[in-house]
């Protein structure tokens, strides 16, 4: 990697370090505010004083349990899933040089869904370190899909074109979706119901164990993402010109592919498929901060978390005491926003 790579599309003349500071400060405040405020709101009114009142034993303290069992894990899960999907979206869009690419594009989330469907339909009943069968099988499924796509991308000696990766990934996605349909077909009535419900996505994780488990692949993904910002700028213009500037394209593409897939797999196994976050958050962020990935990546991570926390807040309060599946809310909010973006550009 060259020591200095100039930012592209630099309409903004301020030094990138200063812009990064402002970007992180702005989106960070938004994300932090979402994290702090969201647990206070819900279908029931709780007293914050009671939540932290040590004189009431925890077993008796309903306010504390609503706060610590029902709401806090949910908000944390939303923050992690939202940021993971947004980051994966940014990386896939740059890697595949396609604005429509999303965490779902390469079949990783379909692999995760297939794993979950199989665990539910065939009644798999095992757990590992407090993690139940469905998220485990789901993560395994996403890694299976990654293995196929990674195999495709390395089948040729010297990297592969974005077009081949994209077509291969889309085909894997379609293939896995067909297998999902087949597993669904084998399921009986009560299982079908649970399968359908899982496919709508839910952040109501009800404990911290699945969040901690998801952090393991997420840490690996974050480490990968951290190496990417500068080279993604070059790759998103074209791999030839990037190579001309001394970027190890092959290695970078693999780091990008594996990191984004790990993030997607972790997110989907934690919350089920939550659509649109990975597609609209990066586009919205680019509208605000420009195309420089040194800004887009951290801003998307923070804004993705805040966005999903907000969507989940809507999902759990709008029809209280019932709630909407969060995947429906992200699609209903995300769909029109994305269309607006699209027509604005035309």
């Amino acid at each position, binding site marked *: 990697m060259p020591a200095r790579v100039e930012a592209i599309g630099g309409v903004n003349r301020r030094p990138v370090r200063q812009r990064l500071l402002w970007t992180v400060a702005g989106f960070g405040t938004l994300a932090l505010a979402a994290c702090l405020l969201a647990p206070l709101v*819900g279908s029931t009114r709780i007293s914050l004083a009671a939540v932290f009142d040590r004189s009431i034993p925890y077993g008796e303290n*309903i306010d504390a349990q609503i706060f610590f069992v029902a709401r806090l894990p949910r908000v944390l899960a939303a923050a992690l899933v939202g940021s993971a999907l947004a980051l994966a979206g940014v990386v896939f869009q740059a890697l595949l040089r396609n604005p429509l690419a999303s965490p779902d594009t390469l079949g990783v989330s379909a692999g995760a869904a297939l794993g979950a469907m199989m665990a539910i339909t065939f009644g798999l009943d095992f757990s590992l370190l407090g993690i139940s069968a469905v998220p485990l099988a789901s993560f395994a499924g996403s890694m299976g899909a990654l293995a196929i796509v990674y195999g495709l991308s390395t089948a040729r000696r010297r990297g592969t074109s974005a077009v081949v990766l994209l077509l291969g990934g889309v085909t894997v996605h379609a293939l896995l979706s067909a297998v999902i349909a087949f597993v669904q077909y084998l399921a009986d009535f009560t299982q079908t119901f649970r399968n359908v419900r899982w496919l709508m996505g839910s952040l109501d994780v009800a404990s911290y164990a699945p969040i901690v488990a998801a952090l393991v692949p997420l840490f690996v993904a974050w480490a990968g993402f951290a190496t990417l910002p500068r080279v993604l700028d070059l790759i998103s213009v074209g791999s030839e010109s990037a190579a001309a500037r001394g970027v190890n394209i092959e290695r970078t593409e693999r780091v990008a592919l594996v990191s984004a897939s790990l993030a997607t797999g972790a997110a989907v196994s934690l919350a089920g498929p939550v659509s649109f976050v990975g597609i609209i958050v990066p586009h919205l962020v680019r509208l605000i901060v420009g195309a420089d990935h040194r800004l887009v990546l951290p801003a998307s991570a923070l804004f993705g978390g805040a966005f999903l926390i907000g969507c989940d807040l809507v999902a*759990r309060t709008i029809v209280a005491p019932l709630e909407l599946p969060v995947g429906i809310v992200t699609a209903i909010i995300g769909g029109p926003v994305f269309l607006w973006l699209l027509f604005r550009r035309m």
Partner: protein
Amino acid sequence: MAAVPKNVAAIAVAVLIAAFTAGSPEGLRYDDTLARRSALVAQPFRAAPTDVPPRRIISLIPATTEMLFAMGAGDRVAGASNYDRYPPEAARLPKLGGLLDPDIERVIALKPDLVIVYDTQVDLKKQLERARIPIFPYVHRGLADITQTMRALGARVGAKAAADAAATRIEQQLAAVGARVAGRARPKTLLVFGREQGTLRHVNASGGYGFLHDVLEIAGGADVLGDLRKQSVDMSTEMILTRAPEVIIELHYSGEMKPEAFEAERRVWDAMPSVPAVKTGRIYLLDGQEFVVPGPRIVVAAERFARALHPEAFR
């Protein structure tokens, strides 16, 4: 993605319709006249044969299969659904598909003189009418529909006396369960239909109507979600905590759950120690097929609920 199986079924049905209509002079065209004519043709076959008891009955719903056996018409059942397990004789019958994917070809090949279908199986009904096979459409809403259907079905298959007697017996047994727990405090009960194994995610529970809701009320429980006009409710963790049920009854349907699995699944609820049912340990996991079949075994379900809710009444 979830809609794909339905699409597959719809395509399969469409192909079948094409196959059937291709031979008729109207060909593939399907217009109003044809629909009206086929309805006119089918009408007498549905209404007329009440005086001639059917001899080859196909029941595509486990509940009606059990009803036929309960009224002594089991030996006339020629085929059942993929989900029929009870009585054991029913499990040995030819399996002809389920609600969404009935195997129409095999249904017709078995030459039935009565097919019991669920009322929403519109395509199947149309096909059977066209094949001039009489049907008995069945719908199910609440507990009262069980004995009502039994009586109507008994009259239709020429087993009126036996069906009436069996239906009356069910009503009496349910009343006896109700009488046994009468006058006792009715605990606020959460009736869980399903959740993700090993966690408290995706808890789905009984709302304010449906046959299991009715059975719960007869067995002396007050449905903690009884105010919601939904048959089943997706519950959030927060909702479980705020509704604070005094008893949790959780249904499993395999009929072969192991004791250690029971214990592990019961412990999952410990994450919510403020819920009264968790505090007092009143969490009951009941495993049985009778909880999914709104048929004669509903009496068994009612008694199991009552024993869980009011153990002292059964000493």
